[in-house]
């Protein structure tokens, strides 16, 4: 991504950002509310186009956003089957695989409109994983999940990361972020500072830095 800028209405939300995310790398984007983290993800996904600058991305992208992008009137299985058709996935078992992976098989024939927020969130993750993406864009993927769900999804994401999937993650919980991320970017006032190689640092340092930035 080079020199990326994006305006919203008349405001400059992202100001000439430059960064890259490699295979198996997980970039966590943190910052105060309204900083433009969601906008950044939407530009990365291709739904929004940058006002200036360019984004180079792979073709296979999965995204979990603030909204589920699912149809309430259809069942979980039907929703996933629809997305399979859009992505050209002919393997009939894929839907079942993904449902099992997210622990939703029991409810697959229930309409999404009846799901709890946590279940919808899990289904949204399932949808993102359908096409086996190289790049996952996750906007607070753990927010509505119960403890068990958080654990399960986190384990899943870590496994995917180790298998080579790149991710850009927006999150507020420092503990889960530090487990998963390989680098952290602080997005404030349209600019982003990236800290590479989290290896040695511990959660507390990051939390401190985060608090600074938010107060900032």
């Amino acid at each position, binding site marked *: 991504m080079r020199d990326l800028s994006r305006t919203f*209405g*008349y*405001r*400059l*939300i992202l100001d000439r950002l430059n960064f890259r995310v490699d295979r198996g790398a997980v970039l966590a984007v943190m910052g105060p509310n309204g900083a433009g983290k969601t906008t950044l993800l939407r530009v990365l996904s291709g739904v929004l186009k940058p006002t200036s600058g360019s984004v180079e991305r792979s073709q296979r992208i999965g995204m979990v956003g603030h909204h589920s992008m699912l149809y309430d009137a259809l069942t979980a299985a039907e929703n996933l089957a629809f997305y399979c058709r859009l992505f050209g996935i002919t393997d009939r078992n894929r839907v079942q695989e993904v449902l099992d992976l997210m622990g939703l098989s029991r409810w697959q024939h229930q309409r999404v409109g009846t799901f709890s927020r946590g279940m919808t969130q899990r289904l949204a993750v399932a949808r993102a994983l359908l096409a086996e993406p190289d790049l996952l864009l996750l906007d607070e993927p753990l927010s509505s999940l119960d403890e068990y769900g958080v654990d399960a999804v986190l384990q899943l994401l870590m496994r995917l990361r180790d298998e080579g999937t790149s991710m850009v993650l927006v999150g507020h919980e420092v503990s889960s972020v530090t487990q998963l991320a390989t680098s952290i970017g602080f997005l404030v*006032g*349209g600019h982003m500072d990236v800290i590479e190689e989290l290896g040695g640092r511990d959660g507390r340092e990051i939390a401190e830095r985060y608090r600074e930035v938010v107060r900032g």
Partner: protein
Amino acid sequence: MNPRQNAVRLNLKGQLITWVALLGLAGVYVRALAFTPIERTQGPAQKIFYLHAPAAMTALMAFALTGVVSIFYLWLKDRKLDLFAASSAEVGVAFSVVMLTTGPIWGKPIWGTWWSWDARLTSTLFIFLLFVGYLVMRGALEDPRVRAQYSSVIGIMGLLLVPFIHISVYLFRTLHPTPIIAKPSAPSLPQEMLVTLLISALVFLLFYVGFVTQRYSLGLLRELKHEEAARGIS
């Protein structure tokens, strides 16, 4: 010079042109009433034609320009193009109102009815309504980028609708011919009337330029104000 000053200067130029046009209009009135012969079959009422026809021509031109400039906007994405298209549409709507009111005023003494489904009046009515819709939609959209995109789409669709509406009205009327004296807007006008008409057309053109310039420059100033306000927040 900064953009704000440029816009203000442009606005002043627009106002100047409009004043000149107003003088021109006074001149047209004088010429039409005192120096142009009275039409034989229609009498003095025909003189409103010198306002009606140029208003119609300018309105149509304004809408056509909106459509064409919309195509350029979708290609070049320069918001100034959208601003021009919208200004042209507004002026077109205003001139359409002139045309649609002078039409009946002209028609009543001659045909006996206020409104006749005359081909040109009808076509103009529908195009006018479409561009009123265009302006209403613009009012309902706040994001300038989305507003410009959507306006361009309507502008282009409107541009292509015009010939279809004309043909529809023509077909309708040939099926239902009405025993009404045709308007003498064919070029078989005596010299003096033609000259008055041409002068009036030029005056209306000047009005168009003056109004659009003012509207456009005001639009520029408003954009600048929004940008400054936004920069103040972030």
